[in-house]
């Protein structure tokens, strides 16, 4: 089918008639409600690529989400004193708390060493990633709210917990549109189904087109994941094509009869895009064209890296195809209330090589310079012990890192106290991270607003400071 085949110019508006293959955008946008249509007529579509507010350092984001909460003091924030005093009770006054005691300390069993020219501290659990230390910008002073996963996940993804708000990816899609007319602007690979579920990649009151397209879900192996309703096994492709022609012929006659009706026009265009997506998505999702050396680099085909390797490789393919915001999630496997040592060894081994490969691959392809890679979770883990050999939830201080897309490579930002309990220097709140992330994409968090229920909403609500020091 040719692009534009069903567009009979008689009743289409000029922008549709003249936009050739670009009409797919309009279709997808079209109608995300009247408002978005008004917007689409003005700008050429809700997902039409838009100019950012400011000079952009990055064009897209890949967020690697470690569901459950990795332990910062075991991975990026070495604490010699914590190790020395392991087994002792942490007094509140030692970390500036009003509480008398904070619990029993448990040291990290892992060795840390310095890496790259920057001398960045990374633990032995990330040997592959360590080789890319000079690409990373590590923030050790992250803090947020939410002591349970659900609340913290919602704050990480949407900035809010008790109210339903658009997710970061939806805001980015809204702010920047898509670079590929046949793909959504926001894709989430293996998203969590619990702890807020779709709300973590939803669009809330933003037009529906900005919601993420989900591929699989966290508990499923990515190799088995599908985008729903993308294929039809009942009818062969030839028959499907003739059936679609019949549908569009009926629609077109309906439109001719109805006169100007934007929604019937939108419906016709949406079938065009659906048809394109049916062939584009499987192409992008297929790893068949990847070389053996690439697959090996990501650890595809070997354990324990196969699943996360596939996810990272998919992320690269979507990035390459112009998707704006791609999230990759682990399963709910980082929540080590017990056996933090054993658990962290196992989980790190699943992701270390694939993440390093992703950075390497993006770099080789020239994509790293305008792709911002973000790594992290809803919170960190306590320096104190739980259930003998585990660590609890810790939103008060934890680590996230960024790479690529204009971030200051080789920087370790912010410090925590001697035990990793609270930030003491340059704290970065989740709202600050969101503001900074948008800024790197050329969007100002105070100007990226959407009018809903009578007022302007933004990702950072009334909070958020851009941390300019994190950007190159």
């Amino acid at each position, binding site marked *: 089918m040719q692009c534009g085949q069903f567009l009979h110019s008689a009743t289409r508006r000029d922008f549709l008639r003249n936009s050739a293959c670009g009409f797919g955008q309009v*279709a997808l946008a*079209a*109608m*995300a*409600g009247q408002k978005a249509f008004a917007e689409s007529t003005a700008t050429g579509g809700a997902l039409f690529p838009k100019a950012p507010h400011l000079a952009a350092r990055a064009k897209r984001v890949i967020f690697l989400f470690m569901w459950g909460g990795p332990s910062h003091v075991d991975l990026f924030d070495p604490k010699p004193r914590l190790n020395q005093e392991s087994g002792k009770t942490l007094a509140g006054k030692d970390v500036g708390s009003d509480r008398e005691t904070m619990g029993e300390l448990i040291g990290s069993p892992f060795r840390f060493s310095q890496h790259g020219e920057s001398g960045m501290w990374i633990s032995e659990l990330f040997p592959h990633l360590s080789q890319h230390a000079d690409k990373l910008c590590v923030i050790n002073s992250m803090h947020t709210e*939410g*002591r*349970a*996963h*659900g*609340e913290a*996940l*919602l704050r990480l993804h949407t900035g809010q*917990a*008790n109210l*339903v708000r658009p997710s970061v990816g939806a805001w980015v899609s809204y702010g920047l549109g898509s670079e590929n007319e046949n793909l959504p602007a926001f894709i989430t690979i293996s998203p*969590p*189904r*619990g702890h*807020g*579920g*779709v*709300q973590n990649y939803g669009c809330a009151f933003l*037009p*529906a*087109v900005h919601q993420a397209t989900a591929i699989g*879900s*966290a508990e499923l192996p990515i190799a088995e994941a599908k985008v*729903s*309703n*993308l*294929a*039809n096994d009942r*009818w*062969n492709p030839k*028959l499907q094509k*003739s*059936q679609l022609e*019949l*549908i569009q*012929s*009926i*629609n077109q006659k*309906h439109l001719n009869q*109805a*006169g*100007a009706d934007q*929604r*019937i026009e939108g*419906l016709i*265009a*949406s*079938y065009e*895009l*659906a048809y394109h*997506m049916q062939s584009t998505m499987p192409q992008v999702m297929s790893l068949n064209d990847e070389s053996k050396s690439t697959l090996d680099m990501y650890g595809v085909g070997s354990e324990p890296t196969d699943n996360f390797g596939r996810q990272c490789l998919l992320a690269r393919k979507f990035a390459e195809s112009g998707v704006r915001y791609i999230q990759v999630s682990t399963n709910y496997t980082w929540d080590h209330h017990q056996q933090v040592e054993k658990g962290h060894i196992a989980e790190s081994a699943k992701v270390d090589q694939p993440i390093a490969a992703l950075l390497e691959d993006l770099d080789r392809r020239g994509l790293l310079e305008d792709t911002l890679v973000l790594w992290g979770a809803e919170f960190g883990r306590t320096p104190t012990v739980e259930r003998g050999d585990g660590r609890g*939830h810790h939103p008060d201080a934890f680590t996230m890192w960024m790479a690529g897309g204009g971030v200051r490579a080789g920087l370790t930002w912010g410090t925590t106290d001697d035990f990793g309990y609270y930030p003491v220097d340059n704290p970065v709140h989740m709202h600050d991270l969101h503001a900074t992330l948008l800024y790197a994409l050329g969007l100002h968090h105070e100007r990226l607003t959407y009018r809903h*229920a*009578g*007022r302007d909403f933004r990702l950072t609500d009334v909070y958020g400071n851009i941390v300019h020091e994190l950007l190159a």
Partner: protein
Amino acid sequence: MKPLVSGWILALLIFSPGAVSPAQSDATPSRKGVEFFEQHIRPLLAKHCYECHSARKQKREGGLLLDSQSGWEVGGENGPALVPGDVDASLLIRAVRYTDDDIQMPPNRALPAEAVARLEQWVRMGAPDPRTNDSAESDETFADPSDPIAGRDHWAFQPLSIPQPPTVEDAEWPRRSLDRFVLARLEAEKLQPAPDANPRDLVRRLYFQLIGLPPTPQQIEAFLHDPRPDAVEHLVDELLDSPRYGERWGRHWLDLARFADSNGLDENFLFREAWRYRNWVIDAVNNDMPYDRFLLEQIAGDLLPYDSVEQRDRQRMGTGFMVVGPKVLLGNDERRQRMEVADEQIDTIGRAILGQTLGCCRCHDHKFDPFPTKDYYALAGILTSTTVMERRHMLNQQRVMERLVGIGSDGEARDGAYEKFWREFPEAKEKADQAKSAWESLKKGDEKAVATLLEKNKDAVAEIAADSSKPMQQRITAQKSLAEKLAAVIANRPPIPPRAMIATDAEDPADEAVRISGEFDDLGDQVSRGFLQVLTHDQVEIPEDQSGRLQLSRWLTDVEHGAGHLAARVLANRIWHHLIGRGIVRTVDNFGRAGEVPSHPELLDYLASELINSGWSIKSLVREIAISRTNLMSSAHNETAYSVDPENRLLWKFNRRRLDPESLRDAMLAAGGLLDLAPMESTVWNLNDQATGVGKHPRRRTDFPCRSVYLPVIRNDLPELFEVFDFANPQATTGGRPETTVAIQGLYLLNAEMVMDAAEATARRILDRAPEKRFDLLFSLILNSEPTSAEREELESFVQQTRDRLQDDGDEKAEIHAWTMTCHALFASSRFQFLE
């Protein structure tokens, strides 16, 4: 207005203009002066004077304006109102002092002494006034938008006018009075209403509007052959009497009530009993429960008197409305949670019933609308004096969860026994384990282990077993018997009793303090429980030992002293929105200053008055609009009208509409003869307490053949069709669902199994017929219309070609498959998805 106004004019007349020279006040008032003005004087003038003396209100009593500097400088018909610096020479001061019988302002009541003192001080300061001559108060610069008294001027807060239906040129066109309002606007713009829809379109429209289902071929024929002049009225009455009506219109309310079968937010725990509230709403709508009673039972049903247990339970179930909101459940400070729950309830009540965004004033006075933070906390006190959460068994723990109550005469006992069992379970299990362990130790002859256990928990060891003087076999037998007894206790788990989610009054109802910036632990002034001042015309006392919910729900529909007129406007507008496709106020959930104004204000007031006059009968108003000429118009395009009014605000045609996901699914199943019309109770019984758990947890089912309204509404895991086709977001009040057209909808209709299964079932029904009748039935079942000859030919050739191709591919079921593809294509077509 009282005769005092003329006194004011008289006073101006007495004063010789020459006596008061129009002294120019300081051209650029000092900053301090401006601050004083902004802080004290502007709010005072706005609150007490603008109503009769402002350009914005187009009121200039006595010729005087007080909303600009030049206003008081030039003064009224005979002179300036103020003499800067000279208090005693200033008329305005004399008037507000209320000491002179001839001149007393404001006319109805003297200002508080403090306010008079402020005004005097201002005049003594030289009456600094930053309001330049050409910037009389506009909405943007309005002194204090949250001022509840000044806010009464906003159209939505004014009492209903009782508009007479206007006279129209074309007296033949209107069927009902409401049509006159529509036609008069069209005639004023020299526009014609569209002709009536053809009867086939009309019957399809009325069925979907009123019961959300397509008419069967027999029902279409019955209507087409009804010779009565009032066939439309008969059809509408028949549909309103159908139990299917409540399933459609109850769902409209459930959108507002943010109904769901699970919590959503941080932990998606199952609301196992929410379905009772869902069915309560459907029943209430079917029974046309008056709207004032409908709200009363939902907000305070637990507080109402009852004659029977059944009635008590029914009324209690209504309060599910207060309980089904989403909440942050885990790791949440209980005090914070209490404020969050109240916030969610205020937001829901505000938007659903009053069309107001009250949630805005949790942290600050409202930025646009006349609600100070104080009003918010007056309501919050009512809601925090209400209990909707309790500690009970959930997912193997005692957790703070939605409050449940046993239903039926033994409900309390069964619920009590159930909760007791689980409260004691951890201890009972430990004891049973210990008893078993002691038994095993005895068998092994390990006296030491038995002694240890005996020390830990003497109840876990039988008396005889503990007695080492007894023969071993006897001890073992005794311990075995105890271990088995204890094991039986924990094995004998009581079934979940029938319960309902309800609200109750807290034990110690109390007023709330304002929370500074909305922070739950930053307390400001205490506020008496009460309602929104802008809509309160009479003080209502809330007894100290009550939450105030009873008074709140009565206030909401109180047309004399409360919010009744606004509530009627909001509801009438919603009914119009659902039938006509767009509200008279298009921002259906926002009647505030940031919302839109009504396109037909008199019509809105007329409909709201009708609603009140009918005793708040929703069915009566639905009927009135459904049988109006306005609702019978065709959706035909008209270039002239389109060029004048492209958005159809004036209603020159019927708004073509997309079917909502419930109708879409029900209609596909109905076409295939697959739809089971029997009402359903719970459709989530197969789920665990984690409604969207991962791994072994079962997922919500959507394969029930019931109507869509009964499908599980699991927050964050809606049935796919709902998600794709713009179902209401069940996390918050949704008066108008979004209308999107996105590619995933196309993908769904082209590829989803459910669509193809319905297509195949429809094809089978069609193939049961003689060949010459098949295309008529195809059209009748799916599009509820009949084919034109061109349409028939196009489809005939598609069926034929597809059959041939399938046969060429060796498909033995080519016939049924070709017809299935045809039905499938029609389901995917715009003709099926849109309502003409």
